[in-house]
C-alpha cells in the first residue's frame, strides 16, 4: 500500500503529475480542491477561512476552531480513502503536513518550471510580464500564509519532504516514474507500526470531525488524541454539561478500543525519555495537576539515532490528532517486519504504566511518542495550544550525568524561547511545587527585610515624608525621585515573593 502526497502551489502542474502517478500505481487520485468542496458541502466555510487568513482581517483566535475542524475533516477524509483503496495519491498545497509521522507516506515537493508558469499566467490572465510576476509572488505569499496559519510552518521547509522534483529539470513523465520507483522501496511499505500510527491518527481525526459536526459539541474546544486505539477526549469544567453528548457521539465511532473522557482545567505536558509512576517527578507533576485541576499529557521523547534522523523532523506535523511517531526500523531489518510488534518490558520508557496510573488518578490527558529533539517538541506544543505548562523530565538518559544536565538545560532553554508558555525542568518544578525547608528559608529571607523596611518607614515617617514632600533644591528633588524609584520596586519584589511563597505554602495557587 502506498500513499503519495504531492505538494505544490501550482494546481495544474501537481494535478497532472498526481494523475500520472496514480495511473502508474493504479491508485485513487484525490485533490485538495475536491476535499475543499466536500468540506464546504459538510458545512465548513473553507472559502471564508481562506479569505480571513489571506486578508488577516479576522482575529486568529476566532479562526482556530474552524481551522481544527477543517484539518480534522481533511485528515478523516484522507483516512477513509486510504482505507478504501490500496494505493492513494493526493495533491495539494501542503499535503505533506496532513498525515504526519506515517512512515509509508511519500511526501513530494514539486517545483514548477517558473519560466513556463510565467508564460502561462501571462497568457491565461492576459497580463504583462511584471504584473504576472507580481501575481505569482502574491499567490506564493498567500499559500505560505495559509500553510503557516494551518500548520505553523513554512511550505518551503524541505525537511518536510522525502523527495523534491524540479520540473525545470525533469519531464513530467520522468517525475512520475521517479515517484513510482520510490513507492516500491521497502522504506515506504506499510508496517504494523505505521498501520497502527495511521489508525490512531485517523481515529483521532474522525472523533474530532464527528464532534465538530454536531451542534452540541461543535462550538467547544476539546483535546482529542488516540494511542493504540484508545481515544482520549479532554474537556474543561465549564464544558461539563457537554460531556454526555461527547460520550454519546463517540459511542458510535468505529475503531475505538476504548474512549476516555477527562475533565481538565488545562493540560500539563510532561516531556520525558522515561517515565516512572513511582518516581518523585511523577508525584510532583500529579500534585501540581491536582492543584490546577489539570490533565497530564505524556510525551515520550525517544532518542534520535542516526538511522532515524529526519523521520520526525520531516514534517512540522499537525499533532492535534496525535499518534505515535515511531522510528523506522527498515535499516535495521532490511525492510522485513514482524507481523506482530513485540516490545520488551519497559521498552516504552514506562509510558504505559505511567498512563495507567494517571488514568487511575483521573489525570490522564493523552500520551504519545516523539522521535527527535527540541525542534520536534516545539512543533508539537505549537500544534496543540491547550497546554499551560511544559515539564521536561528525564531526557538524554544514556548520557553521563554532567552531559545530561547540560543537554536538559539547553532543551528547556530552546523550547522556552520558541513557545509562549512556561517551560521548566523537573528540578524547577520540584522547587516550585514542594514547600520544604528551602522554601521556608526563602520565605523568611524575603519577609525579614520587608518587616524591617515597614518598621523603619513607620518609625521615622516624619523625617522620611519631610524629605520626600518638602520643597527643596533641585538636587534634593532629584534625590527624592531617585529614592522612590529605587526603593519601591525593591519592596514590591521582596514582598511580592514573600506573598507568593505564603500562598504556595497554603497550597492556594
Amino acid at each position: 500500500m502506498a500513499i503519495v502526497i504531492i505538494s505544490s502551489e501550482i494546481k495544474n502542474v501537481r494535478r497532472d503529475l498526481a494523475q500520472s502517478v496514480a495511473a502508474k500505481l493504479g491508485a485513487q487520485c484525490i485533490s485538495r480542491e475536491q476535499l475543499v468542496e466536500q468540506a464546504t458541502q459538510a458545512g465548513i466555510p473553507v472559502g471564508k477561512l481562506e479569505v480571513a487568513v489571506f486578508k488577516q482581517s479576522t482575529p486568529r483566535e476566532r479562526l482556530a476552531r474552524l481551522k481544527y475542524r477543517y484539518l480534522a475533516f481533511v485528515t478523516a477524509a484522507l483516512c477513509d480513502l486510504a482505507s478504501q483503496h490500496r494505493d492513494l495519491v493526493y495533491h495539494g498545497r501542503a499535503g505533506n503536513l496532513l498525515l504526519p509521522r506515517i512512515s509509508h507516506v511519500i511526501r513530494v515537493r514539486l517545483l514548477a518550471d517558473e519560466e513556463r508558469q510565467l508564460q502561462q499566467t501571462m497568457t491565461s490572465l492576459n497580463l504583462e510580464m511584471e504584473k504576472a510576476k507580481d501575481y505569482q509572488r502574491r499567490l506564493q505569499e498567500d499559500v505560505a500564509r495559509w500553510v503557516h496559519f494551518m500548520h505553523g510552518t513554512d511550505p518551503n521547509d524541505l525537511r518536510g519532504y522525502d523527495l523534491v522534483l524540479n520540473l525545470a529539470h525533469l519531464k513530467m513523465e520522468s517525475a512520475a516514474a521517479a515517484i513510482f520507483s520510490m513507492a516500491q522501496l521497502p522504506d515506504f511499505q506499510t508496517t504494523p507500526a505505521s498501520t497502527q500510527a495511521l489508525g490512531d491518527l485517523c481515529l483521532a481525526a474522525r472523533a474530532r470531525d464527528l464532534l465538530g459536526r454536531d451542534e452540541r459539541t461543535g462550538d467547544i474546544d476539546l483535546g482529542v488524541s488516540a494511542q493504540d486505539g484508545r481515544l482520549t477526549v479532554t474537556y474543561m469544567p465549564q464544558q461539563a454539561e457537554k460531556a454526555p453528548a461527547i460520550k454519546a457521539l463517540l459511542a458510535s465511532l468505529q475503531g475505538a478500543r476504548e474512549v476516555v473522557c477527562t475533565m481538565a482545567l488545562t493540560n500539563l505536558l510532561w516531556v520525558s525519555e522515561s517515565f516512572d509512576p513511582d518516581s518523585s517527578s511523577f508525584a510532583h507533576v500529579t500534585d501540581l495537576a491536582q492543584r490546577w485541576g489539570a490533565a497530564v499529557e505524556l510525551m515520550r521523547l525517544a532518542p534520535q539515532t542516526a538511522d532515524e534522523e529526519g523521520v520526525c523532523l520531516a514534517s512540522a506535523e499537525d499533532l492535534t490528532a496525535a499518534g505515535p511517531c515511531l522510528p523506522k526500523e527498515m535499516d535495521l531489518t532490511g525492510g522485513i517486519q514482524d507481523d506482530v510488534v513485540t516490545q520488551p518490558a519497559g521498552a516504552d520508557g514506562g509510558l504505559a504504566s505511567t498512563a495507567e496510573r494517571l488514568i487511575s488518578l483521573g489525570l490522564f490527558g493523552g500520551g504519545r511518542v516523539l522521535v527527535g529533539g527540541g525542534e520536534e517538541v516545539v512543533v508539537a506544543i505549537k500544534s496543540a495550544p491547550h497546554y499551560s505548562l511544559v515539564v521536561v523530565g528525564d531526557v538524554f538518559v544514556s548520557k553521563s550525568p554532567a552531559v545530561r544536565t547540560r543537554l536538559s538545560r539547553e532543551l528547556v532553554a530552546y523550547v522556552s524561547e520558541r513557545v509562549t508558555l512556561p517551560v521548566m525542568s523537573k528540578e524547577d518544578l520540584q522547587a516550585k511545587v514542594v514547600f520544604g525547608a528551602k522554601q521556608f528559608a526563602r520565605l523568611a529571607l524575603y519577609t525579614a527585610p520587608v518587616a524591617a523596611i515597614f518598621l523603619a518607614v513607620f518609625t521615622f515617617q516624619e523625617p522620611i515624608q519631610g524629605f520626600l514632600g518638602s520643597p527643596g533644591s533641585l538636587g534634593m528633588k532629584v534625590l527624592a525621585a531617585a529614592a522612590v524609584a529605587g526603593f519601591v520596586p525593591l519592596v514590591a519584589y521582596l514582598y511580592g515573593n514573600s506573598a507568593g511563597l505564603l500562598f504556595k505554602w497554603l497550597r492556594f495557587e
Partner: protein
Amino acid sequence: MHGLLSELFINLDLYSALQVVILGFIGGVLSGFIGSGGAFFMTPGMMNLGVQGVVAVASNITHKFGKAMVGSHKHGEMGNVDKKLALSLLITAAAGIRLAVWLSSLLFESGDASGGHKGAGANLYISLVFVSILTVVAVSMLKDVFGKKSDGDTGPSHKIAEALARLNLKPLIYFKVADVHVSLWVLLLVGLTTGYLAGTIGVGGFIGVPAMIYVFGIPTAVAAGTELYLAMFMGAFGALNYAFAGYVDLRLVLLLFLGSLLGVHLGVYGVKVVKEKIIRLVTGVIILLCVLSRAVAIPVYLRQMDLINTAASWDGWLNSASKGLLFASGFAGIGIIMYNVLKAYRQRLRLKRTIAYSQKPTGQH
C-alpha cells in the same frame, strides 16, 4: 505630621492605616480579578480618608509601578507581552502623563492662590475626570454583557479594529507578538490618552486594555500583559514625576502593597473559576458604584471652591456616603469573588471524582 507637611500628608493612626491596607487588599483582589490596576477603587478610597487627591494619585501610581514590575515579569514568562507595542505606546503615554501631572499640580496650587481650599480644585478635576471616564467604561462593559448574543461567542467585538484596518491609515506598524498591523496615528492617540488618564486618575489599564482589544484587535491575554508592561514604565515615569514634585506618600505606598499583593493572588484565582460574562458584569457594577461614590463627593469640592453654597456640615455626610458606597462596592465585589474562590476550592477536592470513564464497545459510560 506637622507644619507644611500636615497640609499635604495625613496623620496615620492604626485605624486609618488598617483602612488603607483594606483598600489595598480590595483593590488587589479586584485588580487580579478584573485585570486593571484597581486604582478606580484605591484612589477615591484614600481621598475619602482625607488624603489629598494629588497625593492619592501619586501614591497609587507609585504603588502600581512596583506591582506592574512584578506582574509584567510573570506575563513575560507566559509570552503575553508585546514589548515593541508597549514601548511604542510609551512614547506618547509619557507625554500624556507629563500633561496630567502638570495640570494636577497647577490645580492643586491654584486652589490655594485663589483663596479656596487648597487641593479642592485638583480634587474636583480628578473626580470629574474619574466620573466621566469610568461611567463610559462601566456602561460599555454592561452593554457588552447584556447585548451579547447567547450563541457562545463571548469574545470581544472587533468591529472598530476592522473598520480602522479598512481605512488603512499609513504608516502601519507590524507587532509580531500581538500579530497585528496598527496605524501610527491610532497608536499615538491611544498612547496619549492612556498616559493622560494614568497620570490624572491613576487608571490607565481601563483605557489601554480595551483600546488594544477593540481598536488594535489583539488577543485579550496579550493586551493585559502588554498593558502591564506599559504600566510599569508609565508608573515609573508617573512616580518619578510625582516624587519630583513631592507628592508621594511612601507610607501609603507600603500599606497599599501590604494589602494588594495578597489580594491579587485571590483575584487571579477567582478569574479561573468565574465565567467571563459574570466577571464583566461584576466589574461593570463595581465600577459604576465607584463612580457614584465619587460623584457624591463632588459637591464637597464645589463648596470648598465657593462654587456652590451648601452648609459645611454637609461635607461629613457626603464624605461618609461616598465612603459607604465605595466600601459597599468593594465588599460586594470581594464577596462575589471570594464565594467563587471558596466554591472552586471545594470543587477541586472533588475533581478526582469527576472523571467520566467509558468502556468500548459496550457503550456503557
